[in-house]
């Protein structure tokens, strides 16, 4: 019996998620291990198995390239989907390991697997409407672990989750109506007004989903109110999927890429996001919000990179996306420990001198922050440096604006470091936080990986360049 690849990539995570949710909630280690192994298996399967080959698996055979037909709708793994699928499964696997010690008995593991299955489905299905609905389902599932009441150190303000669902739902009509307009265009190919309407709707929906200005409010609220590992999952896996969807649509629908205004629109929106995000990050008084605004700046940088309308621009955008899990993973572990000190509060007033009580968490937060700001030594720096070079070739002013946005995040990180390094208030507990050795190892590993990839970014840049060469929309 031959099983199509999409069945494995969606079915296995969903089945394991059901088992974890029903049977294994008591054993965090087992949940984390199974969730990470499942995600890793799917990632490796899609990454290393040649699509045309048939993989023997006992009495079954897995045909990766074989499409899955669901009521006439087709899900298929195409060569261009391999890096996105590997990215979301790989990042999910890493985050499950990180969450092992941060979220005991959490529903993050089953919900995360279900989310990654939905997002993989969104990448493999070829109709916009189903992609939109699967992304919506993944977003709703994220709310459950995002506001899960674990211990006293996570805030229970539900505003972040509610706002996130509201924004993703606001993006849904645009995507669904786009599908209708495309079907109409197939019937009336001379009616270009349909394409113009589809472009506007698609652009608006992606702006909402990616938190582009002026729809950025959900990013900071989610980062402030949500549990840090789940926030990282949202900002890497969910947002990553949306970015890859945008690239896939630009490639699949040549009329979309051919819109003359897109190039300048991407650049303008991206620079706006970087400037506004940088300004807000520089003046932040809460660690969580700093994470949100750093992500806003990173998204802005990706828009600017796409706005260059060059192959290297696409490669840089993907490279920034690949660098994000490392940086945000570090910030997550730092934020988690520092919030524990403040019993869920992450304002600077509460965290004065926290570096003396939780030095490793402080180091993790600061190194992650530096990497998110795109400063050396990190993979983000290599990507941002390339961006400044490409942008400055067209306009030095724009390059300076982009640099200013990143400098804003860096100023925010330095401001936080200054507060964290202040002498401990006399009224505060002087006792040093006992550090979990597993978290410590993870922090050291992530810092090592960040620095190593910062020094030798060639391995990643080679992969993203190869992937970017598959995109031809900017040549039209």
């Amino acid at each position, binding site marked *: 019996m031959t099983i199509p690849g999409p069945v494995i990539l969606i079915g296995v995570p969903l089945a394991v998620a059901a088992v974890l949710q029903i049977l294994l909630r008591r054993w965090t280690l087992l949940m984390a291990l199974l969730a990470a192994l499942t995600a890793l298996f799917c990632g490796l399967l899609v990454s290393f198995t040649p699509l045309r080959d048939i993989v023997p698996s006992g009495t079954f055979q897995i045909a990766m390239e074989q499409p899955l037909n669901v009521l006439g709708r087709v899900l298929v793994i195409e060569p261009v989907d391999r890096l996105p699928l590997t990215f979301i499964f790989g990042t999910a696997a890493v985050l499950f390991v990180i969450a092992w010690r941060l979220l005991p008995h959490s529903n993050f593991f089953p919900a995360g697997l279900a989310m990654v299955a939905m997002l993989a489905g969104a990448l493999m299905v070829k109709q916009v409407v189903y992609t939109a*609905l699967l992304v919506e389902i993944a977003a709703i599932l994220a709310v459950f672990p995002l506001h899960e009441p674990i211990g006293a150190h996570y805030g229970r303000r*539900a505003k972040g989750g509610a706002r996130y669902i509201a924004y993703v739902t606001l993006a*849904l009509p645009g995507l669904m109506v786009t599908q209708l307009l495309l079907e109409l265009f197939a019937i009336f190919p001379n009616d270009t007004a349909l394409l113009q309407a589809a472009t506007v709707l698609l652009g608006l929906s992606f702006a909402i989903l990616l938190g582009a200005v002026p729809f950025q409010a959900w990013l900071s609220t989610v980062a402030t109110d949500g549990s840090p590992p789940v926030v990282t999952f949202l900002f890497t896996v969910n947002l990553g999927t949306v970015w890859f969807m945008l690239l896939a649509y630009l490639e699949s629908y040549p009329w979309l890429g051919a819109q003359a205004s897109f190039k300048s629109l991407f650049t303008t929106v991206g620079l706006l996001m970087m400037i506004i995000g940088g300004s807000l990050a520089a003046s932040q008084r809460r660690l969580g919000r700093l994470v949100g605004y750093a992500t806003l700046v990173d998204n802005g940088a990706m828009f600017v990179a796409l706005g260059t309308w060059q192959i290297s621009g696409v490669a840089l955008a993907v490279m920034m996306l690949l660098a994000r899990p490392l940086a945000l993973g570090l910030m997550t572990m730092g934020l988690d420990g520092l919030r524990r000190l403040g019993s869920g509060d992450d304002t600077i007033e509460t965290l004065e001198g926290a570096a003396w009580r939780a030095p490793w968490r402080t180091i993790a937060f600061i190194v992650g922050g530096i990497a998110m700001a795109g400063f050396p030594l990190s993979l983000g720096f290599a990507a941002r440096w390339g961006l400044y070079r490409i942008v400055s070739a067209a306009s030095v002013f724009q390059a300076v604006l982009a640099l200013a946005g990143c400098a804003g995040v860096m100023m925010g990180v330095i401001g936080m470091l200054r507060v964290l390094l202040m002498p401990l208030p006399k009224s505060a507990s002087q006792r040093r936080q006992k550090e979990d050795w597993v978290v410590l190892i993870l922090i050291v590993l992530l810092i090592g990986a960040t620095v190593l990839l910062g020094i030798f970014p060639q391995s990643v840049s080679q992969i993203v360049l190869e992937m970017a060469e598959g995109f031809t929309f900017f040549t039209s």
Partner: protein
Amino acid sequence: MNPFIAWLSQLSSFASTPAAWGIFLTGAGIYLIHEWRVRFLILVTQYFLIGILFARVFDTRPEMALLKILVGWLVCGAFLISAHVRGRTRGQADSRFHWSSNLPFRILSLTVMTVVAYLASQRYPLPFVSADLALACFILIVLAVLFIGTEENDPLVMGVGILNLLAALDIFYSSQDPGLLVTGLLVMVNLLIGLAASYLTVVEVAE
């Protein structure tokens, strides 16, 4: 055919426009009244009215409209339980009928938005949708904007707003493509949003 489905189908053939205005009245009730038992009854009515409109959309398969009503009522039940838990946890034993705060502002914004919805339905007719369905879509969108925009601190009302937006989208989209897969996925999304809003309400007060 199930007698309820047959009756719903007959009702939808002449009561679509009143149903659209009924949705507005029920939305206004949820917006202006701050008592969840009353809101629950109003929401149940609203889902019945939405079901009447769906019976027009799915005129060859009215059982789909019944499915939409049942899903809506399930969500209503979840909301009522969450509101009850919230009220009990916050020690709000007094559950007498009372109006929402800032009543004049709410009435004014509701009036303005209703005028906007009516004028929009007249000026921008939705393609391939009859006028009464288009009016219902605009009213649902306007209610969604009001709920999401002004009730951000109440996950339940925000949930109602998100569900209203989805209902508008569902009516419009299903009119063109009444496929089973899309309908099934939208039903799932509705249920999940209902669950998520209830969950957020309970989590927020569980301190």
